[in-house]
Each structure stands twice: as structure tokens, then as C-alpha cells.
């Protein structure tokens, strides 16, 4: 039983890593007033270009760097569409996702002949710096995410001038502008930082967890993140807690599928379980949430 719980815990933390990264990234975008539905595509492109770069150069670090660049470009593009051009955020975000998935699949076809490529790289290994075993045996990126990125993201958002600027342009861009803050620059920055986190979250799959690229690699996790951010009420800690909750149910159902006595339960039902939990959690906690004041609204000086 202990072993079972430990297994679930280990998997929960591991599977929560890309969700936590994406959640932080999306929270930054939305706190600045921009709903970034490009997240699914950004994670996907991060996964693909991270993998392809690592495959060609033989360097995982360069793969990670490629994902960072993809995130900057994706976030910058989203900012150009929604901030500079003032385009509808839903359309821009969905368009960005379609574009990035298309580009990645096209790249996959060109480079690896498409389909379910069986090319593999040697991914990042599991590390266990404290040599405690069990749940402590994780990827370095997981350690960095939960011990550094999550607290840092909170600190930057709540305790720095940059974070205050993000929150201000997301709540009331007129007031922020009148206070001498550049709404455009702040939103660009928030979207690009957010894009990097999303793309690195995607690259986690190819560079750490799997070591290969498959076509359904992100499998809607970007959309799950959108729900988690609302569940988290645009706070870092609550959103990450939501990521862990989703991941726990996800990991549990993965494990149950191979647990004796559970094989009679249709696995599709188990597969749907984490999504049902997200919907239920959202229905319970998502009522009367206060969206950022300038959510979905492009800013123009009048």
C-alpha cells in the first residue's frame, strides 16, 4: 500500500511539472489582461523544436534553449496580434495554436518523415540529490520548477515593480498608463515570459519524460491549464495546487488501469476521470470569480 501511494505521489509530481509551468505562464498572460489560447500550440511547438534541436545537435541544453526561443516568439506573436493590432484574443489565441501545431507537424514531416517518429534521444535522467528515493527521484526540471520557478513566479508577481505593473495593466490599463507604465511593453513582457514557461513545459515531455516526439504529445493539456488558471483565481499557489490535483487524479487512473481487479472498468472512463475532476472543481470554485478587470480588452488611448 505504501509503495502504491509512493508511486502515485512520484507520478503526480512528475506529471504536474508541465502543467505547473504552463499554469504559471498562462497566469502571467491573463494577469496582464490577455487570455492566451495559444498555450496548446506553444507547448506543442516547444516540445517539437526542443526535441528536433536536441536530436540534431545532440545537446539537451540546446534543445531547451530552442524551446525558450519558441516561447519568446510565440508570446511575442500573440502580443503583436492582441496588443499591437488589438485583435480579438480568442481568435488570435486559437489561430496561434493552429499555426504552431501546423508548423510543428510540418517540421516533423520534413525532418523525420512524419507519422509516429521512432527517433529517440537520450533524455534527461532522473536525479535524486538527497538520495531519499521514491517521490524524490525526479527530473532536474521538476525540481527547478517546483522549488525555484513557482516561488519565484509568485515573488515576481506580488513583490516586484514588474509584477505590480502586470497586475495593474491587467486590472485597469488606463490607470496604469496614467501612472506612467507602458501598457504595451508590460503586456509584451508578460506574454513573452509566459510563452517561455509554456514552451519549456512542452519541452519537458520530449527532453525529459519521453525522449521522443509524438503527434498527440500535449493532448489538450494546454486547455486544461486554461481551466486551472481560473480554478486558481489567477493566483500562483492555487493554480499550482490545481495542477497537482489534476495530476494526482491523472496518475491515479494511469496506475489503476494496470491494477488487478480494475481491468474490467473501461479505460476510457478512467481516462476521463481527471477531466471530470477539473470540471467539478471548476464548477465548485469557479463561481463568482473576479476576472482581471481588463480581461480580453485591448487597450487604446482615447
Amino acid at each position, binding site marked *: 500500500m505504501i509503495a502504491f501511494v509512493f508511486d502515485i505521489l512520484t507520478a503526480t509530481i512528475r506529471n504536474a511539472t508541465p502543467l505547473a509551468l504552463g499554469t504559471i505562464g498562462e497566469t502571467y498572460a491573463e494577469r496582464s489582461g490577455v487570455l492566451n489560447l495559444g498555450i496548446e500550440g506553444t507547448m506543442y511547438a516547444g516540445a517539437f523544436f526542443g526535441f528536433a534541436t536536441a536530436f540534431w545537435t545532440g545537446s539537451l541544453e540546446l534543445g531547451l534553449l530552442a524551446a525558450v526561443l519558441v516561447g519568446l516568439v510565440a508570446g511575442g506573436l500573440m502580443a503583436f496580434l492582441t496588443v499591437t493590432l488589438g485583435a480579438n484574443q480568442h481568435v488570435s489565441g486559437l489561430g496561434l495554436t493552429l499555426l504552431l501545431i501546423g508548423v510543428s507537424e510540418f517540421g516533423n514531416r520534413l525532418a523525420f518523415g512524419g507519422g509516429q517518429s521512432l527517433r529517440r534521444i537520450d533524455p534527461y535522467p532522473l536525479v535524486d540529490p538527497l538520495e531519499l528515493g521514491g517521490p524524490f527521484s525526479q527530473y532536474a526540471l521538476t525540481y527547478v520548477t517546483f522549488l525555484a520557478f513557482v516561488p519565484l513566479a509568485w515573488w515576481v508577481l506580488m513583490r516586484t515593480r514588474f509584477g*505590480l*505593473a502586470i497586475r*495593474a495593466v491587467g486590472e485597469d490599463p488606463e*490607470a*496604469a498608463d496614467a*501612472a506612467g507604465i507602458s501598457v504595451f511593453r508590460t503586456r509584451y513582457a508578460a506574454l513573452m515570459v509566459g510563452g517561455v514557461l509554456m514552451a519549456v513545459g512542452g519541452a519537458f515531455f520530449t527532453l525529459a519524460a519521453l525522449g521522443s516526439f509524438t503527434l498527440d504529445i500535449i493532448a489538450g493539456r494546454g486547455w486544461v491549464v486554461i481551466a486551472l488558471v481560473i480554478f486558481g483565481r489567477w493566483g500562483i499557489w492555487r493554480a499550482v495546487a490545481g495542477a497537482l490535483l489534476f495530476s494526482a487524479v491523472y496518475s491515479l487512473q494511469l496506475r489503476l488501469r494496470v491494477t488487478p481487479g480494475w481491468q474490467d472498468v473501461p479505460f476510457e472512463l478512467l481516462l476521463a476521470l481527471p477531466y471530470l475532476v477539473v470540471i467539478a472543481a471548476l464548477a465548485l470554485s469557479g463561481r463568482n470569480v473576479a476576472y482581471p478587470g481588463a480581461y480580453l480588452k485591448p487597450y487604446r488611448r*482615447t
Partner: protein
Amino acid sequence: MRRGEIHALLGENGAGKTTLMRVVYGLTRPDSGEIVVAGRPVAIRSPKDAIAAGIGMVTQHFSLVRPMTVAENLALGRGSGMRLDLTLAAAAATEASQRLGMRVQPSARVDSLSIGQQQRVEIVKALARDCRVLILDEPTAVLVPQEVEGLFSALRKLAAQGLAIVFISHKLGEVLALTDRVTVLRGGRVEGSAVTAAVDERTLAELMVGRPVVGQERAPAVVGSATRDPLLEVDSLAANKANGLPALRGVSFRVHAREVLGVAGVSGNGQSELVEVLSGTRPLGGGLVKVAGVTLRGGSVPEVIRAGIGRIAEDRQASVVGDLSVAYNLVLERIDDFRKGGRLDEEAIQRNARSLIERFAIRATPQAPVRTLSGGNIQKVLLARVLAREPKVLIVSQPTRGLDVGATEYVRSELLAARERGAAVLLVSEDLDELLALSDRLIVMYEGKVVGALNAAGADRGQLGLLMAGRGSAGAAAEQSA
């Protein structure tokens, strides 16, 4: 502008006061011209440049991020380095509020503060940035009389400390009471500039309007009207806000024929909900509404129209369909009267439009889409639409907000004309001058209740202010007659 001077910028709506100051503060770009601060020409492209040049501004809509604390708002766009130093911001808030002579709590969330307090935070914000020139755009529009006094004494204190203050207003009394010099704008030009002590109200008004002004002529209240049957009776009315909290807690009053009942109060004390219930757009939460003796079920617009209520709503843009023509908007409430079989009687609609446009001096053709009209002309369209039906009861909310002096005079004279014709008028307004000029009697609303009732003639502003702030009580005699 000189150091230590309070300078009034006076003009009608649309005269260019606000635009001029937005240019100075970098919110709007000038086409040409130059701005000189302390002897040096400065290029102001954004509020950041303005702040650097020592200019601070308190706009009509506050530039505060509402879900944040006072300290966070002060820290916004200030300081250096990466860390956000809220202790420093709080200290700056305290120091600036001492200069102002008014208390401000740095840890309070802005959306928990009253409008008057938020305005203080705005001034404190500008002071904390070492502004040398402080611009206030119609700062008294949102305040009750006592708060206005407090603001004036604070501004005098700041001027004594060497600050130059621009006070934008269209209220002559305030300009005369507070300022040292005055500049009058009309139609985007400077019409004149003078030392305030050397001019009187009439001279300023004529400069502002460009022609001699006449006051409102109002027929005296009909003596003994209270003994006649009331046209609108409201008894223990209750209603909820959109969020389910109570907005009206047992409101009762009567309005008689040939009578204007003014509803005073700081906005957000139930006036909007009262108007909505009487307009049929908000369900009755309890109590009784009778129009000419007929009880309304409530929550139905057609019922309200049938009962003979005419409505001039607060949001005039939302009361018209902007893309439809003036002619269609004029028949919108009674489209059934303009049918020929199953089709619209276009000819009758156009005829109706032409006659109403002439009668109400609307500056537009029948075919013009309403959204192309000025605020004053849209209000005239609404007046025409409502008054053409000769309603027994008229529910009017903020009828002259945002209108210039000419249009305001017109709207007010039409309301008084409706009263002469025998209508009962319920007038909700945040403009005390308007209420006092038009009403026969006044009621004051505070937190969803009627906290006072008095006769408009000889009403004391100080007492009204206290009532609006939820303190004091008023004339039991008047209350009985209500």
C-alpha cells in the same frame, strides 16, 4: 499659471477643458503648440513625461487600480530597482496626506473606499510624486457638499505650500469661491481670462455661453396638491441589486399631478434600482407601485408603458438603437401604432419624425442614424419619444448629465412643461442645483431608504448634504406630506 495659484478653467461641456488638460498630461496628443513648465518648453508624449515635468492630474474617472491597496497604487510606476517597496509607498502616502491635511489609510483596498476618499488617494498620489502643478478635472461632481468644503480647504492648503492648481469646472459658484484667477474656454478657444475677485457670476456665465443667460422660470407649486389623488404611489418598495443584495429597503413616496419630486442622494444608494423597478426592467422585490390608482405587477416594460409611465433613462446611449434612424427610434416604444396590416407604415413613421423633429428642435434628419447625433440631440430624441405619448408619470434620471448649457436649459424647460401639462415627474439627479431648480419636493435616499423629505423651496444645502451622507434627519412635516 503661477506658483501658489488656484486657477479655474471654466467652460461648457465640449468647450475643450478636459481635452486641453489631457494634452497637458500626455493622454491626448496635440496637433500643434507647445507646453512650457517653469520656463522650459517640454515635450509631453505620455503621462510619464508629464509626471517627470512635475504635473499631476486627478481625472473625472479616477486612475486608480481598484482591487489594489492605496500603497500599491502609489508604488505603481514609481521607484527604482526590481523590488516593490510597499513600506516606502505607505510612508509616502502618510506624508502626502499630512500635507493635504486629510487622512488616508495606506493599507486599505481602493474599492473599499468611498468616492470622496478615492479622490483623496488620487491627490495624495500626485503629491507623492512631487508634482508642482496639480490638475483637477471637475473634482466636485462626485462629492456631497461637506466633502466639497473639505476639498476646498485642502486645496487652499496646498496652494499655500506653493503648488499651482488647475481647477476645471462648470460650476460658477465653486470657481468664485475657490480660485484666484479664471480662464474661460468656449468652443476650443480661450474666451477670456481674469482675476476671479474682479468678475461676477453673470459675466462668467455670459463668457461661457457666449450670450446672455436666462434662469429657469418655474411656475410655483400648486397649493394643496398633496390633497389631490397622487398619480404615482410607491409603498414599502423593496428590490435587490444584480448581486442579490438588497438595494431598496421599503421605499415609500407619492408624486401628484403637476408636481416634480426630486430624488437626491450620492449615487449607488438605490436610485438606479428605484428607476429600474419603475421602468419595468427590474422585478419588484416587495411593496406596491400604483400608477393613477392601478397597481403594477412589476418587471414588465409593456405594462409600465401601458400604465402611462414615460421613462428618460440614465444611460441615453442604451435607450436608443444607435444604428437605426431617428425616425425609427422615435416610434420604438409604440411600434404597434405605426402598422399597416403586418407591415410598418413607413409614411406615418416619417411624418411622425418630421413633426417631432420640428417640435423638439432636434438637429438631425429623420434618416440619420441616431449614433451620429450629439448627446444633447439624442436626449431630445428621447424626450420627443416619451413626451409625444403624453405620459401621466415621467421617470427621469440624470436628464442633463454631460449636456452643455444650451441643451440643459432646453431639457429642463421641457420637463417643467410636462409638469405644467399635469404630469407627475420623478426626477433622479446627482446635480443638487438641478434638483433644487426643478423640484417641488425632495426626498433623499441613503442605503436603499428614504432618509428625508423636504420642500425644495428654501431647502438647506447643508442639511441635504448631511442627509445624503446618511446623517441627520429632516422635516417630519414634509415627510408627512410625502
